[in-house]
């Protein structure tokens, strides 16, 4: 035993491109050693699953969850992805990783052994560490529970289909999906009252009101109109308070307050909401998450090569693949798809390492806290744990990196026939570029801010939504009206959406969807 473990500790982990489970787990152990001992990563236990390309396509279309309820939109996505893949326009991912405990990573069977090593380091350690430690994921998602919750959701929806018919369930899901982006809590953690407790509280409140009722109040003299309008205003304020308005989470509001929904329909809204909430942190940490994973795999693979455990051939393959992943075409390149989160994230991480180890005078100016400390591991671990894309870029995007990427800021006003270059990579431009890039990763800024502002449950039950228009960016009209109809379907009564300019307070548009 000692002899074999000795030989496993040195020498090449694998030769040739074919993999088998022995080489996989030998390589995994070597990667784990570096990840835990040198990078001090903290990960969930790993579960690696080998899948075929068909299964990868399946996983794609169910938004990467191993279990998902059935809905036609996933079929549409599947047809779409399959089409791209079969026509050769897009390759499949080498891996797919799920924020769960244990952390499930899918490896494609077609990967060579070198690629399996790369994606193991990338997914099972890079992403895994990020999932476990980043504050957003810790705060908003429950890795322990997500798989069993998805199992519940799938079964529950299948049961609903059996009982209420596919069409009815589909209609609810359609409407819920339309509001998925408006179905997350952005600022507060969802209240954790069980529905039973809630009912209990409502009953107590009712009892209290009954007990304190006095007929005398009715005999008071009539009020002046001034008083009445005061009264009305007060009433509005009170009922808003009672409904916790304004509310940014449309799905939550509808689930709790809609008068036309059956209990099972509410539960379905809840399921969609939970899933949206689960994915919310991922959307805010794309750059960091990929940057972290890419940095980790790059570091580990190089260490393994230095230790003589990966041969030169596989290392070249790994480097080539790595280079493809972090390739950033220029804005005028026909391949330009936007800023590549892998490229930006990886560059940011490496830059932090450079600033810590080998700072220039400029870096010392900009990053006095970390420049030259040599503590890049601690800095990175701290950044991974405590930032999201927006704050991370705002904190760590260095002038050197801006110059490397030759970033520039373009301002686009819809009424002008031209765009204006506002800042480029020079002294005066750094701050502006950094702030603008950070803002472009802020979901709160880039997603329309739509809130429930008022509804009179005892009156006409007209639900009023308000879109706070920022920088004059309106909603795409056709889609907006269709979505509004979905809201109307869930609410059951008239729904109107008003666009209000957040600076001037002027109403820019108002649309109403009437219940039929």
């Amino acid at each position, binding site marked *: 035993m000692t002899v074999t473990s000795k030989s496993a500790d040195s020498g090449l982990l694998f030769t040739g491109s074919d993999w088998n489970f022995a080489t996989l787990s030998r390589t995994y152990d070597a990667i784990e050693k570096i990840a835990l001992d040198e990078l001090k990563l903290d990960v969930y236990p790993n579960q690696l699953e080998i899948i075929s390309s068909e299964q990868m396509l399946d996983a794609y279309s169910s938004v990467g969850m191993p279990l998902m309820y059935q809905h036609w939109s996933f079929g549409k996505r599947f047809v779409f992805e399959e089409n791209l893949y079969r026509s050769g326009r897009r390759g499949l991912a080498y891996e797919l990783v799920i924020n769960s405990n244990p952390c499930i990573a899918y490896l494609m069977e077609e990967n060579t052994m070198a690629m399996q090593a790369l994606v193991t380091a990338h997914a099972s350690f890079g992403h895994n560490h990020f999932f476990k430690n980043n504050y957003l994921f810790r705060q908003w998602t429950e890795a322990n529970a997500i798989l069993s919750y998805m199992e519940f959701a799938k079964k529950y929806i299948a049961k609903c289909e059996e009982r209420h018919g596919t069409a009815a369930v589909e209609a609810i899901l359609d409407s819920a999906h339309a509001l998925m982006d408006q179905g997350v809590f952005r600022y507060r953690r969802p209240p954790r009252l069980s529905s039973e407790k809630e009912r209990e509280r409502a009953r107590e409140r009712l009892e209290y009101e009954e007990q304190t009722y006095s007929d005398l109040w009715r005999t008071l003299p009539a009020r002046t109109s001034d008083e009445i309008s005061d009264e009305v205003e007060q009433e509005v304020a009170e009922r808003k308070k009672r409904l916790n308005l304004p509310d940014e989470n449309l799905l939550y509001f509808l689930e709790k307050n809609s008068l036309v929904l059956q209990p099972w329909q509410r539960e379905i809204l809840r399921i969609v909401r939970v899933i949206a909430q689960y994915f919310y942190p991922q959307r805010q940490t794309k750059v960091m998450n990929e940057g972290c994973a890419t940095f980790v795999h790059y570091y580990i693979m190089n260490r393994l090569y230095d230790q003589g455990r990966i041969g030169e051939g596989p290392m070249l393959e790994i480097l080539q693949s790595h280079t493809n992943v972090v390739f950033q075409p220029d804005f005028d390149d026909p391949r330009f798809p936007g800023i590549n989160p892998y490229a930006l994230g990886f560059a940011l991480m490496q830059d932090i390492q450079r600033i810590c180890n080998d700072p220039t005078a400029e870096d010392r100016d900009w990053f006095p806290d970390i420049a030259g400390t040599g503590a890049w591991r601690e800095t990175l671990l701290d950044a991974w744990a405590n930032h999201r894309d927006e704050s991370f870029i705002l904190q760590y995007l260095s002038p050197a990196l801006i110059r490397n990427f030759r970033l520039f800021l373009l301002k686009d006003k819809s009424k002008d026939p031209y765009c204006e270059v506002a800042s*480029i990579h020079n002294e005066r431009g750094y701050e502006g570029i950094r702030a603008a890039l950070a803002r472009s990763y802020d979901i709160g800024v880039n997603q329309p801010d739509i809130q429930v502002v008022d509804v009179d449950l005892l009156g006409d039950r007209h639900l009023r939504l308000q879109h706070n228009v920022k920088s004059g960016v309106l909603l795409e009209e056709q889609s907006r009206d269709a979505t509004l109809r979905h809201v109307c379907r869930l609410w059951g009564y008239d729904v109107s959406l008003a666009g209000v300019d957040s600076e001037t307070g002027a109403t820019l548009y108002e649309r109403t969807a009437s219940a039929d």
Partner: protein
Amino acid sequence: MTIYIDRRLNPKDKSLGNRQRFLKRAREELKRTIKEQVKAGRIADVDAEHRVPVPVRGTGEPTFHPDRTSGERQYILPGNKEFAPGDRLPKPGSGGGGSGSEGGRGGADDDFQFVLSREEVLELFFEDLELPDMVKLNLKEAVSFKPRRAGFATSGSPTNINVGRTMRNSYGRRIALHRPKREEVERLAAEIAQLEAQPNRKAVEQRIEALRQEWERLERRRKRIPYVDPVDVRFNRFEAQPLPNASAVMFCLMDVSSSMGEREKDLAKRFFVLLHLFLKRRYERIDIVFIRHTHEAREVDEETFFYSTQSGGTVVSTALEEMQRIIAERYPAREWNIYAAQASDGDNIAGDSERCAALLRNELMELCQYYAYVEIIDERETEIFGSTDNGTSLWRSYRSVGEKWPNFQMTRIARPADIYPVFRRLFARQPAGAARR
């Protein structure tokens, strides 16, 4: 310790259900596309895969998302080469200075096509067409199986041992391995006994010893080479053979007298093809019988049916009689679903039409699941006859059949374009279903 799980053998097509739902959702639009493709292409092409553009209507997923042409926005782009602050860049055509950070899904939608399988195409093609009420069989019923002898196997249950085979193998093996025969051993034993019984034992002592050794050797050998070894055993093998409980025979009847020109025959053929295609979906096994007639009827093969001409008068009843004879001979109505399609230009010898109608009314319709009569008329006649009940003598006589038997259908067609609508009408939902819609 990490866990590796090999999922490759897990069932694939997890998304199949979702794909079905998507197709169902987009059904109307797909149906229209298929119909157009069928109209443009040849009828034989229906029975194949089709490429269709992905439907847009009914499958939109609306959300509240920003309108990209309004308001003020900022882009950060990489790869500046020559710009300085204050430079102005003209906007490309539809607005949006840079392509921004959204790319991907939206853009490629236009040229996005996917393949519908043959089944899916036909499903759409035949949607809301229904076979007439079928009295005899329930199509949803599982196919029944009947075991049938199919050679021999080396494994099986003891009751299925094939003794003849087994013994033959055993015999061959015994010969090949030189298994000592029982007589041989017995003969030796007898000899030993005989020698032992002799008074002068001393003289034959050696001989007895040799015989004994030989006898022991043979005995050992007999033990080592068994009489019947497991490798000899053969079993009768049975295969489950599906019993076609859904077989149909389709009779194609056509007038081939000189009045039926190329055009008429072509129309008739298309009609038969469509009917066949439709039946093919419902039945595992379909026989087709072609009967052509002039003043006499004959069963012919497909080639002759469509492509050779024959001169003579027209006596339709001969075809019906021939059909009746063939049914009686080969297709007992108990076991077969009988469908018939008759194409004619309506000509018939005087007095025969009544006889045809009577034959159908009283005898043939009892046997048939369905009988379709298509009268091919001139394009100019469509205006005259299209909706009236006037027409040829055959047409008028057949009307009386139609009145008595709901599964008798008759229509006039003039152009290829008429076929499909007619076909639909022939198989349209029964009145009960129609009322429900």
